[in-house]
């Protein structure tokens, strides 16, 4: 395995723009316009940007939910397209995804037991006893009580549901995690808890995170390097400390200036 968990080169995604029945072309949306970056082993790379900047599209392409229009992605040293051709199961063992809205990402009609069982059975192919033991370990890792298993998703608060969603992503034992706004839907105190949990898990399981968020302060607290997206392009990529202290792009400066702060108490 190479030192890079993810290498992305000239990634482009255009929605629409296809030929229609009558010869015209439909309206094309250039969601991602030629983005290149890499995620090192055991690193947290954050991608920040406002809505519509293409950050979620990158995440969805990396986990195989969208197909890139052009460009290459390498995941764990292997070409993503080749990896995908081998089947979704092999892909799922390399990289996992945590959704923004934890409650929406859990099927309302299944118990947590059923939800956690799927990746263990399909991706890891563990026998029944091993799966039961793993489920308990996973819940332990995300600090949820063992009786969680018999419950349904709607019985949990947002923070608890996000812990369960993280447990499901961990179940695949993938070393790379793509976190798409994992704390945006959560209250601040819950957000802090989930951030702590992610930090602990990273150390415990040797994970690499691609952390997508619109909240600069959250990003600064968790990431090693930060990339700024603006209208489908990556305008800046640097270490967190450098980017926040001396931003070089105008847009980054505007983002940092707009962030609300506690010390600016009303005049």
């Amino acid at each position: 395995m190479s030192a890079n968990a993810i290498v992305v080169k000239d990634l482009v995604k255009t929605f629409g723009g296809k030929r229609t029945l009558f010869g015209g072309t439909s309206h094309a949306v250039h969601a991602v316009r030629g983005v290149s970056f890499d995620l090192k082993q055991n690193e947290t790379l954050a991608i920040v940007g406002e809505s519509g900047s293409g950050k979620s599209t990158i995440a969805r392409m990396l986990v195989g939910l969208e197909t890139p229009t052009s460009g290459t992605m390498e995941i764990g040293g292997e070409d993503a397209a080749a990896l995908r051709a081998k089947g979704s199961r092999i892909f799922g063992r390399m990289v996992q995804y945590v959704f923004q809205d934890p409650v929406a990402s859990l099927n309302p009609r299944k118990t947590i037991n059923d939800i956690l069982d799927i990746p263990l059975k399909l991706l890891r192919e563990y026998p029944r006893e091993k799966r039961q033991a793993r489920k308990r370990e996973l819940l332990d890792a995300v600090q949820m009580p063992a009786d969680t298993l018999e419950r349904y998703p709607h019985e949990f608060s947002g923070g608890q549901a996000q812990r369960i969603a993280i447990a499901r992503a961990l179940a695949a034992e993938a070393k790379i995690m793509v976190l798409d706004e994992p704390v945006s839907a959560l209250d601040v105190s819950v957000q802090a808890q989930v951030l702590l949990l992610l930090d602990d898990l990273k150390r415990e399981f040797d994970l690499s995170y691609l952390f997508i968020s619109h909240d600069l302060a959250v990003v600064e607290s968790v990431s090693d390097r930060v990339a700024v997206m603006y209208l489908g392009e990556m305008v800046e990529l640097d270490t967190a400390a450098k980017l926040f202290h001396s931003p070089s792009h105008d847009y980054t400066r505007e983002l940092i200036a707009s962030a609300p702060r506690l010390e600016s108490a009303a005049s």
Partner: protein
Amino acid sequence: MTEALATKPQVSTARLSSWALLLNNRLAAAGLVILGIICLLAILAPLLPIPNPNATNPPNRLQPVFSDGHWLGTDHLGRDILARLIWGTRVSIAVGLSATAIAALVGSLIGLVAGYARGRVDNLLMRGIDMLMAFPYILLALAIVAVLGPSLINALYAIAVVNIPFFARNVRGVTVGLANREFVDAARLSGKSHTAILFTEVLPNVAPVIVITMSTTVGWMILETAGLSFLGLGAQPPQADLGSMLGEGRRLLFNAPHVSIIPGLMIFALVMSINLLGDGVRDVLDPRLRAGDLTRPRSVTNIKRDTIPPKTMQSSDILVVDQLETSFQRGRATIPAVNKVSFSLKKGECMGLIGESGSGKSVTALSLLGLVASPPGVITHGGVYIDGEEVLSKTEHGLRALRGAKVAYVFQDPLTTLHPLFRVGDQIAEAILAHQPLSRDAAHSRAIELMEQVGIRDAKERVSAYPHEMSGGQRQRIGIAMALANDPDIIIADEPTTALDVTVQAKILDLLQDLRRERGLALLLITHDFGVVAQVCDKVAVMKDGEIVESGETKTLLKNPQHSYTKKLIACVPELGQGKAFLETVRPLFAEAKP
């Protein structure tokens, strides 16, 4: 966290079971009883002491009702009508149910596949369904029977085929919505195949829709079976079936009306009871109906206060909230969401009401003018004084005169609060006309003026834009313009910037701040974001579980919080410049909380 787990069983006992809900609906219960009796009779037909339904006895023909040995008389061949009725009902119900089952199976399958696969498969399947729908259904059924030949089983096929589009369309609609949901993506990432996702993830969520469609179409199918039999295309003589009995009795309508009226009444009772029950089942299974969300809310929240506060109050404050308590009815229990909350607001002052989700801050804001949806909301205690007058004691009319005029609201997501089919200018004008006797033109030019005031460029052109043609920030500006339409004294802004990007948020907050200074507005800002409070509010109140735990000047409160909850909340807000040190500062806060 443990708190939430502990309170759970309490709530579930307070919620009514599906069965109790169904029986609470009197019409549905009546339908269930009638249907039960009819089905019981039909099932027990071979055991009942009734004559052979097909045994003819011409000398005894056309006996009237209540004649000897024949309670319901006999038909033109002297056959006992009661026996034929019971056996005929048995056939009709069996055919109706089997046709429903076939239509549900095939239709749902088509709908599921079309809705999940989308693209070409969807087009092909649904255009096929469209072709089926393009024929008048009875004509199609007639054509099918004409090709296959008249018999009961062919009538069953015809009715099933004719009803497939109902299921396919309904199920496809729901599936399309579900196929884009995150849990389907999540299942795909967990390694599930498309077939597995369709049948184990999507189908359980579609099942209620299938059941609802079945319960509402089964009556219709029985009616159609009867229709085909009436035309002589279904049940063949001598077999009894409600439709064929009706058809045979038709010729004798004037001589012996009971021969056709009795099966007619049976069809009526059967279909009516099934439809009543079907509606009841739908109401129970539809989660929105069940939660009472679709029951029409009253225009003012129910007010059942234990003590009525004095009508007026001497105060220089423009808004005084005194010991306000708002509760929600859950099943048979009443749970307070806002628990004896008091605060006041001066002219030109901005107060932040901050708390986490479920702390009751939005309910507090809506209670001020009785806007909490009722049922389930009830205001159970306290008073709200605007300009020294108690508003909750006012009549419905009096309260409505205040809304939008003296007190205006700005909501979180302007996309959901603006009407998607009306131009934004017309919506602002409507807000003006609700309170001011202006001409349409005057209101329209006032709308443009307001749009300029909230910083929309090219207001003259944008006035005729639809909400979806504007960006989130612009839509929120329209929301603010509507709130300003009648020069209110108080604006209540419920998370006005939560749905917006940070750069846009900064601009909207600036706008609110400017408007407040220019017009001397009192602003009640509801938010979960301490950064926003710090930027615009003079004072702040922290809510937790329906109570205000701490309030004071923004600066002092943020610098020196007294209550442990406030301290924890403030510590949990990451700040730019803190970097990774943030995680280390919050770690001790949750260290003891770990199990």
